[in-house]
């Protein structure tokens, strides 16, 4: 099954989801996207940049070091509300810096969307 097919499947499975993008946090690039309509590249780039800002090291330190002065793992998920959309970011837990970004219209089932995105990301990152 191709990455695009996985992204299409995730977009269909999450209610109110209009976009799913798969990207690389180190390169800050969206590599594949599934969308109900065409999206400007700038919007995809902005999603990936925000994901990298939230889920990567800042100036060589993890958020845990910055906030609590102690070592800790990099966060692996984030939910961002805006006045008209909900962005869900899930990053891989291993060495890879893969990320899935989902654009939804409601935060009603953010936990379900995160769980579904996590399952799909694991499959993609494992190369299945």
């Amino acid at each position: 099954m191709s990455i695009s097919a996985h992204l299409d499947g995730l977009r269909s499975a999450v209610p109110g989801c209009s976009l799913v993008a798969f990207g690389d946090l180190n390169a800050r690039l969206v590599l594949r996207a599934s969308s109900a309509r065409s999206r400007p590249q700038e919007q995809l780039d902005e999603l990936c940049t925000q994901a990298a800002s939230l889920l990567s090291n800042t100036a060589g330190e993890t958020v845990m070091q910055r906030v609590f002065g102690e070592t800790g793992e990099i966060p692996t998920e984030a939910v961002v509300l805006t006045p008209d959309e909900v962005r869900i970011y899930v990053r891989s837990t291993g060495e890879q810096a893969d990320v899935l970004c989902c654009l939804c219209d409601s935060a009603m089932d953010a936990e379900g969307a995160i769980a579904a995105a996590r399952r799909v990301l694991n499959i993609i990152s494992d190369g299945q």
Partner: protein
Amino acid sequence: MTNVLETSGGLSRLGDLVHRFVLVGAEAAHDKAGNCGGDPVSAALRLILREIDETVLPRYLTVYDSDRPLARLVVSNRRLFALECEGNVATEVPSDPPAAARVFVQGLRNLAATATILRIRTSGRALEIGHSGVSCSASHLAAAAGLSENGGDADRLDAFVDQVKPFCHGWTRCGAQDNRTGGDSELADHLIGLSETGYGLTKSSRVAPARPECAVVPLPEDVSLVVAADGRRRLIAVIPTETASEVLSVWAGIYRSDS
């Protein structure tokens, strides 16, 4: 999106006077939204709150989209007791006043966003004043909606801060000249340092995000980071993860129309 605001106080002479008086206010609200770059939904919401604030005796206020009724408000003594949307049972309101204000504000904001031509009319004396006994004053509702007394939305972030700081282990509201912190002081200092790295901002919006937004990032030890931005001002806070949904709900009540 609301683009015309109108109210009517009824057919009596006094009602006509009130009508004219309120229309001036309505036009001012519309003018402010249209000409000063304000949010038209907030302007419409402000108009509804003004009607509540000017209603002393027990009254039903009906909110219309043009001639189509959208909802009925039960108001007395300048307080909102119930909100009954057309076709639905009355909105269930929690007994906790801050939570009740959030529920009312969400419902009123939905009305303000739904109506193309918003009208409010008094539709009779209210016979029953709510079932739960919970009520909210117009000023309390305005505070919960992040509406300032001077007609702007500039303090929506402060309204958010005021409502969520009881949840926070530590927080900083920065990006303005009057930076504020609260909770654990050492943690707040670290959060200021994190803010200075531009954490959570997209590169293109490092100066100021185009739209308000609120991020919640779960961390180990059952805590989460909250990063909320409104223009150049930001709140960065650490909260117990178990309160994250409530914090997002507060933000949605202030900034979203569909929450």
